[in-house]
């Protein structure tokens, strides 16, 4: 929270650019986007996600649940307790569950097996409530521990390859009353919805920039959104029915985006408007 007042300067810049837009819309559109990018960059300096990271680190070490255990022996894919670098290799296959899991579904597994918490109940809890608030802290800290590292999702196990292929089909699945697929908005370069730039999630740099920024702090809602929550709201806007928290459809999409983003840099937890 060090330099929050700095945000005022770029905001003014954005307003100026918007005025220019009245003169020459096409030229100013890109400049406005640049202005917003600059605004984000400056906000990054005091990203409130840091507060969630601190909470998450404490939660990881805290003895909780019916078994009064910490998460410190949780295996996120790089061995029990290894957090650094885990985020850029998720989702991946886990032999103990026999499933491909993303960060959040894996945390559910650890909360259940180590701490004795009820994973089903946590998955059914609305975003931003009760144990889901703890999840915000955990994903913020775990992702931050891999900040600046390159995405390198494993694709060696048959199920990992299978989930990539499923994710690709999910990405192109047209449905709902509007016939929208993920690809409708995120399947091509240099597209915008209203003034918002849309990353092309089928390849880099879009896949790494889009996938690699979540979890992120949402300025508009003052909350930390996990990848699961980001996907949930995408599906809402797609006019799809409700995706289950940590469901295989969401995990498959994570594999698809993450593998497409291979080599790109993790910036999570980022800051979003």
């Amino acid at each position, binding site marked *: 929270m060090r330099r929050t007042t700095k945000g005022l300067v770029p905001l003014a810049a954005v307003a100026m650019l918007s005025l220019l837009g*009245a003169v020459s819309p096409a030229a100013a559109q890109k400049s406005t986007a640049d202005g917003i990018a600059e605004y984000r960059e400056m906000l990054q300096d005091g990203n409130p996600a840091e507060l969630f990271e601190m909470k998450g680190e404490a939660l990881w070490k805290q003895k909780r649940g019916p078994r009064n255990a910490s998460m410190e022996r949780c295996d996120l894919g790089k061995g029990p307790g290894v957090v650094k670098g885990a985020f850029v290799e998720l989702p991946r296959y886990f032999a103990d569950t026999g499933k491909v899991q993303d960060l959040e579904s894996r945390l559910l597994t650890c909360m259940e097996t180590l701490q004795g918490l009820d994973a089903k109940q946590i998955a059914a809890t609305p975003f931003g409530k009760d144990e889901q608030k703890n999840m915000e802290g955990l994903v913020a800290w775990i992702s931050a521990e891999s900040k600046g590292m390159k995405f390198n999702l494993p694709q060696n196990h048959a*199920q990992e390859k299978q989930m990539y292929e499923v994710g*690709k089909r999910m990405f192109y699945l047209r*449905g709902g009353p509007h*016939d929208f697929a993920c*690809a409708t908005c995120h399947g091509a370069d240099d597209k*915008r919805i209203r003034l918002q730039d*849309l990353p092309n999630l089928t390849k880099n740099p879009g896949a790494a920039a889009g996938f690699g920024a979540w979890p992120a702090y949402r300025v508009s809602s003052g909350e930390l959104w996990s990848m699961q929550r980001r996907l949930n709201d995408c599906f809402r806007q797609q006019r799809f029915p*409700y995706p289950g928290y940590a469901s*295989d459809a969401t995990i498959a999409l994570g594999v698809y985006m993450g593998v497409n983003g291979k080599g790109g840099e993790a910036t999570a937890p980022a800051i979003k408007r």
Partner: protein
Amino acid sequence: MTQRNHWLPVLGVASSLIVLGCASVDSAADVDKLTQQIVTASFRDQGIAKVDRLKQDETNAACSAADAAGKPIDAKLGAKLEADNLKSVQWPTAGKFLGDWKEGEKLAQNGRGMTWTDKPGDANGGNCYNCHQISKQEISFGTLGPSLYNYGKIRGIVDPNSPEAKAIVEYTWGKIWNAKAYNACSGMPRFGHEKILTERQVQDLVALLVDPNSPVNK
């Protein structure tokens, strides 16, 4: 929702699949089956957004498959789907294509409706500015679709009620009612066909696009 009875063939297959863990390479058909199982298991009803929204009609199933394969849809199949979609276009009662462009502009600005946080009976918007440039005044527009600024002017419409304008006015109606009638895998929603917008609302949007007095053609 008239065409929603064309299920993907794989949907009927029993849930015996899950070949998970096998070392063998899956066929595309295996992955299609697994995808359908995962879709079925992953989504639930919420508010007005029910899981039946994921049952694909023939058009969506064919276009999704082509997209995932990274290939354009087979030309013959595309032409058939376009013809089917065109047949289903409901033309305006009493031949009234044109409504009030001012109402059309409000609809174009309104991106609401049909999500699980919308209530049954809430009025839907047209979402137009999300993807299209439309009037010059509104600079917050998307680029997922082509610019529609000067849509009627570029097409030489002087009087939208004249016989000369008839073909374009009809096409405009058809495109908004069912965009897949002219491009099988268009990314544009089928506003009339899917009952997103009413006949009256489509009239207002046609007016917005073709009326020489609307900001679109200024």
